[in-house]
Structure formats: structure tokens, C-alpha cells
């Protein structure tokens, strides 16, 4: 598939990422929750949340960079109508499994296109072997977990006081020494540990909620 207006992509991507932050404040309902109750979902929101997951899965399927780009596009085009409406049917089971099925199917299509020797309708056992090779299930579970954690981080940011989040980010995520955080944010050492505790408790709560929504 050809890529149009690539030169403008960085600008639009920044806009989507920025919009993502705002979205976290505008809704208390996570994307997974919206999916599970069948709410309408915008493709930009879906893309922002799921493109990295699809990209990583493409790596598991040994797709090249260009093929991974195609994979994201093909998965998105499968999941959305031409009018940009999300078409997941809850009856199809757990969203995590549904998502993997779609990604893997589109991945197989791409591998088929690549391998000219395999014609459509012919046995594609060799390609399917990639999908069931050792470790694929574990890798998918781990990638899904990363996806949940990244979603949880967005929610955490909007759930905490800005200073609590800042302390958590510098001390816990970036690994700054407490003394450095103290000086930089002009806070007491005890507030650093208090903020970290509060953030970790909240993070655990959000992760449990997101996992239960699957």
C-alpha cells in the first residue's frame, strides 16, 4: 500500500499524541471499557492506543519495517468501516484474542503477498508455522501487558495531583536519586516516598481495572 503525504505525518502524529493527553482528562472511561460496552470509538483514538502493539506483533511475525507499516494499515482497515466506525462485535469473544486473530490474519496475508511462490488457496503451512512457533503465545501476552501498562500510565497521569505524578515520574520511572528530586522539585524527602506509594497503589488499581475489562 502506498503512503500518502508522509511528509506531514510527524505533525499529525504529534497532534494525535497531544490529543491523547487531553482525552485522558475528558473521559473516565478507558478505551477497553468503551470497546467492551460497544461504545463508538474514533479511529485516531484506537490508532494511538493500538498501533505500537500491532507494530510489535509484526516484529514477532518477522515482518520488515515496510511490512509492519502495511500491517498497521491493514488491521485498522479491517477493524474500521470506510466511514471510520469501529466494527468489533462483542459476541466474538475476548478483545485480546480477537485483536491477535486479526493481526495474525493480516500478517499471514502480507507474508503470502511477499512469497510469490505461494498462491492464494494453496497450503500455507510454512507461513502458519510462524504463528504457532515456540514462544509466540508468551510474546503476545507480554506485548498485551505492555499495552495495558501504557494505557494505565495515561490514566495514572490524569488521576494524580500533578506534583505527585511528577515525583513518581522522576523518582520511580526515570530513576532519579531522592536528593536530586528534592532539589529539583523543592519537596521534602518524605513527600517523595509518600507520592511514590500513592502512585503505585493507584497504578495497581488501574491495571487491575483494565485487565478486568478485557
Amino acid at each position, binding site marked *: 500500500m502506498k503512503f500518502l503525504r508522509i511528509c506531514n505525518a510527524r505533525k499529525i502524529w504529534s497532534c494525535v499524541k497531544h490529543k491523547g493527553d487531553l482525552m485522558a482528562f475528558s473521559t473516565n472511561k478507558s478505551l477497553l471499557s468503551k470497546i467492551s460496552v460497544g461504545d463508538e470509538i474514533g*479511529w485516531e483514538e484506537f490508532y494511538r492506543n493500538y*498501533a505500537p502493539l500491532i507494530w510489535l506483533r509484526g516484529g514477532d511475525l518477522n515482518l520488515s519495517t515496510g511490512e509492519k507499516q502495511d500491517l498497521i494499515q491493514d488491521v485498522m482497515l479491517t477493524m474500521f468501516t470506510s466511514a471510520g466506525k469501529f466494527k468489533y462485535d462483542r459476541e466474538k469473544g475476548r478483545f485480546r484474542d480477537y485483536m491477535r486473530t486479526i493481526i495474525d490474519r493480516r500478517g499471514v496475508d502480507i507474508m503470502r503477498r511477499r512469497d510469490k511462490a505461494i498462491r492464494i488457496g494453496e497450503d500455507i503451512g510454512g507461513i502458519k508455522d510462524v504463528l504457532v512457533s515456540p514462544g509466540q503465545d508468551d510474546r503476545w501476552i507480554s506485548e498485551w501487558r505492555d499495552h495495558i501498562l501504557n494505557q494505565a500510565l495515561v490514566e495514572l497521569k490524569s488521576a494524580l495531583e500533578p506534583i505527585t505524578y511528577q515525583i513518581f515520574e522522576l523518582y520511580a520511572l526515570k530513576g532519579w536519586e531522592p536528593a536530586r528530586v528534592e532539589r529539583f522539585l523543592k519537596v521534602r524527602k518524605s513527600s517523595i516516598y509518600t507520592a511514590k506509594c500513592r502512585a503505585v497503589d493507584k*497504578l495497581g488499581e488501574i491495571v487491575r481495572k483494565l485487565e478486568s475489562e478485557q
Partner: protein
Amino acid sequence: MKHTDRETLERYVSGDLSALRKIMIARHLKNCQACSRLQAEIKTGNELVDSLRKARNTYMDFEKDDKAAAVFSSLETCLGASRMKKQESN
């Protein structure tokens, strides 16, 4: 028996205490189930943060990747994102 508060245990787990305090707390933990449980909870929380850090780094690599970002542009065309165009013109 006086229990160890959570902040002190956090500092104990992260090694941010004097040698004497460390010895005192280690001795207390040997004899106190409640504080040992709290210490285990703190360690579990730290493992969650470690996983979050790794997950965040993986996704940051994706966001920095121009080739990954380029997909958005073509999807905008395919899925008819008139809203995005409106935003751009505003």
C-alpha cells in the same frame, strides 16, 4: 512492639537508610509478620513499576520511529479523517 511505618520500609527496600537503622529494621522484620507483609507489598509494587518502565520505553521507541508515524498519514486518507483536517485549518 512498635511497627515500622510504610515510608521507612520504602526507604529500607530502596537502601536509603543508615546502616544502624537497616539493622534495626531487619531485626524487626524477622519477628513481625505484618511488617514483612508490607515489605512484600512494596516489593511487588516496585516490580510493577519496573514493568511499567520497560513498557514505556518500548512504546517510546515506537513513537520516535518516523516510519511508524508515517502510517498515520496514509490512514488519515483511507479512513476519511475530516475532523483532523478541520483541526489543521483551525
